[in-house]
């Protein structure tokens, strides 16, 4: 058995190049809570995602993982530092962005096809064309027989497939995912990860995938960002040189994968403990 310790290459952080898909440059985000306290969500945060790159963000609970995604969408503005998407500063919600939520964000009063067609319809695509594309995407995620079903008639995994189709139909250049598969059972999650990698490799979008599951991060990503316990900042960045295409069901038994996961876990562990101790003290 030949181990390749260099598979998890630790990268040094530099100022992001201007042509990156996503460039978060030295961003700090503070906000005032309703009871008047100043909270720092993230500080001195730098992150670069190249075009077509798959980046995962892992870190202990409450370290500001989701905050980074909201900075990219423009739903949150940095207090200091700046955020660029496809070379342009973020001013409004960009049409290039797709977002898959942790919670079920499908519209329960719309059938599968109406849900998937929502994006193009919102963006002014003619109805016939929008539905034609929606039908195509529903087929691609394997739900052809369920066009007319409503979300509550589907299983959790099927609803996630609808959510993926709903997001991918807009052909986002940038795909943000906030623990999208955390509510699924193990087998369904593995299947959805494969599905996601297939769609991603076809679409060549740049992905930021937030997860608390290190193995999921290593299995999916080109690059893993480890955050410190809140207020979050980047602790270290690892390049994952596992060959693609990857098969999710098998990769976790790959010795190289195990080696990489161990290296990063050693790094992450102390932050997790710190985060847990802190949440035990503050009760959050």
């Amino acid at each position: 058995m030949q181990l390749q310790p260099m598979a998890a290459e630790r990268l040094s952080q530099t100022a992001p190049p201007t042509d990156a898909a996503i460039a978060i440059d030295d961003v700090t985000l503070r906000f005032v809570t309703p009871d008047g306290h100043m909270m720092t969500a993230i500080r001195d945060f730098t992150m670069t995602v190249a075009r077509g790159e798959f980046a995962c963000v892992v870190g202990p609970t409450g370290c500001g993982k989701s905050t980074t995604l909201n900075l990219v969408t423009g739903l949150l503005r940095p207090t200091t530092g700046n955020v660029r998407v496809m070379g342009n500063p973020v001013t409004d919600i960009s049409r290039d962005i797709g977002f898959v939520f942790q919670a079920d964000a499908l519209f329960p009063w719309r059938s599968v096809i109406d849900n998937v067609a929502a994006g193009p319809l919102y963006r002014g695509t003619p109805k016939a064309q929008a539905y034609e594309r929606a039908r195509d995407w529903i087929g691609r995620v394997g739900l052809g027989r369920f066009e007319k079903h409503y979300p509550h008639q589907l299983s959790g995994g099927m609803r996630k497939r609808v959510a993926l189709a709903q997001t991918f139909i807009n052909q986002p250049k940038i795909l943000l995912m906030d623990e999208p598969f955390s509510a699924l059972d193990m087998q369904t999650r593995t299947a959805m990860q494969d599905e996601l990698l297939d769609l991603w490799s076809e679409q060549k979008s740049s992905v930021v995938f937030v997860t608390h599951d290190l193995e999921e991060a290593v299995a999916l990503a080109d690059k893993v960002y480890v955050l410190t316990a809140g207020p979050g900042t980047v602790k270290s960045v690892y390049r994952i040189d596992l060959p693609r295409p990857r098969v999710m069901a098998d990769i976790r038994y790959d010795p190289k994968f195990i080696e990489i996961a161990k290296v990063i876990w050693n790094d992450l562990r102390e932050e997790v403990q710190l985060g847990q101790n802190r949440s035990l003290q503050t009760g959050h």
Partner: protein
Amino acid sequence: MNAMSSAEQAVARAASIVTAEARAKARLRRRYALVIGLRLAILVIFLGLWELGADYNIIDPFFFASPSGIWQQIWSWITEGTSQGPLWLQIYVTLEETFLGFVIGAVGGIAAGIVLGRNRLLADVFSIYIKIANSVPRVVLGSVFIIALGLGMASKVALAVVMVFFVVFANAFQGVREADRAMIANAQILGASPFQITRTVIIPSAMSWILASLHVSFGFALVGAVVGEFLGAKQGMGLLISTAQGAFNANGVFAAMIILAVMALVVEFIITRFEDYVVKWRPAPFNEQGT
């Protein structure tokens, strides 16, 4: 030998399932019949005791009416008409006032609920006035409306409107406020404009709240119309009650009350059917076709 016995077992099992299902169905039917039978029995006993009591003067029929007297009153209204014109006209007038008040109040309440629910500043500014207006006993407004709008239909409609408005408003407002954050963010990122968000996310998710309030508020509209007529009118069920009361005609008051109850039940039935049609997707509410 072995195969035979397992085939026989399968047949026996299927047969026992069939008989068990039949038995369960029969049990359900018997229970349903029992409930209906008990309901009828209670009605018959209640009316019978009332009638007997009135016959033997244990219950004074002058003050408390009697089932036969009430029935005769209804029958004479149907066949000979009331002192203020035919019965159907009274029902029609009251229903028209109720419907107008209901529709205006509901539309206004929904619109105000959505506007204030979507706009924090307006909500904070107006919440105090709405609280004040809501705490005024609304039936008292009936007198104001009669003075201002006269004895005609307008004053009854106005009273029904204020009865309906606040209930529907409160529910629409709450429904808008409870719209799921993730769902709104999802629509926003998919490319929806604020108006599209209101139309395709906010309103559908508030719909189950709004429909619930429509149920209750139709009854309020009816109360508004009848009380308005009671306070001063030329036509309507409320006037019929007030006339009967003035003549110490207890049978007349009860008869009008029963007619009103029947009207309310019929409309309630229609609203329920409408609601079932619109909200096919409980617990996930509202079926909206395309956009």
